[in-house]
């Protein structure tokens, strides 16, 4: 990811985190889609730029104002060094409330079989879970699950879309 894109992503994340403390963004993939639209123009679903919001839950204000997304290389489940500080920020936050439950959702790009991608996404989710564990987060607070290629953040059949779909999302429940 280029520095410009990185700044845009962080900007979008900060912007959304600042949208108000009374609302919770619905599922994380919905948030993602808008992030993708901010970075590129490849999303077919983001025309008009409306971000749907679920007002049903209300913890968003408390969640750290940093990205909850860790991106991976193709066929890889190694956490790259640039995501270490992000993981550390979340580890500190999760540890601060032992009652907090976090699900780490692994995702892949669209290439290959659904089941194998599900297993690959599981590896990505578990890489983040293990990293959080090494930073002292209790295992009972964490669950690693996978969506495989079923919930792409961005639609599209090129590397721009794929690179944003190969991810693990730290999802506060």
């Amino acid at each position, binding site marked *: 990811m280029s520095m410009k894109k990185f700044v845009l992503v962080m900007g979008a994340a900060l912007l959304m985190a600042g949208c108000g403390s009374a609302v919770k963004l619905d599922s994380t993939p919905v948030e993602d889609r808008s992030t993708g639209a901010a970075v590129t123009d490849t999303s077919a679903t983001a025309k008009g730029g409306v971000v749907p919001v679920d007002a049903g839950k209300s913890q968003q204000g408390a969640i750290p104002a940093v990205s909850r997304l860790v991106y991976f290389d193709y066929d890889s489940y190694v956490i790259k060094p640039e995501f270490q500080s992000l993981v550390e920020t979340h580890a500190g936050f999760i540890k601060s409330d032992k009652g907090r439950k976090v699900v780490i959702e692994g995702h892949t790009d669209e290439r290959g079989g659904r*089941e194998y991608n599900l*297993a690959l996404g599981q590896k990505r989710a*578990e890489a983040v*879970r293990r990293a959080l564990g090494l930073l002292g987060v209790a295992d009972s607070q964490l669950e690693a699950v996978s969506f495989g290629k079923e919930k792409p953040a961005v639609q599209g059949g090129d590397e721009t879309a794929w690179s944003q779909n190969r991810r693990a999302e730290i999802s506060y429940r």
Partner: protein
Amino acid sequence: MIKRYVCCLLAGLLSWPALAQFRVEVSGVGLTQLPIAFAPFRGDEASPQKIGAIVQADLERSGQFRLIEVAASPLDENARPDLFPWRQKGADSLVTGSVTRLADGRFDVRFRLWDVVRGKDIGREGHVVVKGDLRLAAHRIADFIYKTLTGDRGIFSTRIAYVTKSAQRYDLWVADADGENSQSALTSPESIISPAWSPNGTHLAYVSFESRKPVVYVHEVATGKRRLIANFRGSNSAPAWSPDGKTLAVTLSLSREGGSQLFTIDIAGNGEPRRLTQSSSIDTEPVYSPDGKHIYFVSDRGGSPQIYRMPAAGGAPERVTFTGIYNISPALSQDGRWIAYISRVNGEFRLHVMELATGSTTPITETSADESPSFAPNSRLLVYATKHQGREALMTTTLDGKIKARLAGQVGDIREPDWGPFQNPDN
């Protein structure tokens, strides 16, 4: 490429106009195809389902028959036709028949099969069915003809399951083997993958994401009753039935160290999973051999995903695929001879078939995003998912790849096919 195109074009021009809707692609020369002719069935014009066209499409899709077009007047099952002109046109067999609406609203569908070469009547059957079963009656006629002329059981009256995606809606469908007559078994706002028919064809196991993580259900198709069979910590996926229908092999990540590992669950038991594989790598996509003695599965223990085989109760795995660096989604034929799988070749995902006894492997397609192969229960056809003009579509193919047909019946994205078992003991 040009030659192929012309070949397809010719096949298209020569085929019966009524068959255009079934989109059968003939992409090779089938030397062993049986030439068969149909006289129009008496009463078929007025029938809500065109019996003759459905039977012909079934037979053509099987790859074992070549339809001989002859302009003729209707001939019913009682006619004693002069077979000489049919012989002159090159037909070895002739089908005649009738569709009659009965006073109670049901339909009486009858046919007779003639051996044109020997001038003999070689079989007849009748089915009295309600309107909704007219297609089934046609599929049973195709099964009869197929069995009589090839010696193998036909698969036309079997069912397939598949998933469609449209906007934010997913449906799991049960349809006839030609993709038509589909009925929704499940609708969900989240993805559904990996449907798997129970060996007796009454239940489907599948992976649903409706609870924001993958869990495995077993679902009785006739009643809609379903049971959560695997909902453990982490991901639950890749259900596969043992041939006796008592055990489900699944991929779980519940172990302390995580990872995707193979387990079995006794369906009638207490639901406790028993671990089959002990590796730090990905082990997934289990499938039982037809004799129940082995489980084939995908593992990246050698550094890249390959297909392995181990005893069904667990034990030392042996590698099955050696060519290529990405081989996934194994499917086994009921006769135990063939394994179909998806292989990534130069970045393209293509259906391959391997003869297990020899290891001889054949690429079946020239498409680039094939997925989820599944054998017809007579081991003569495969159904698989692919991309066709940018949309997800289902195709059937003969095991040599020469005769392919795109399954009709649905618009939009269609995926995750699984071919069900024979419905009757001797259909």
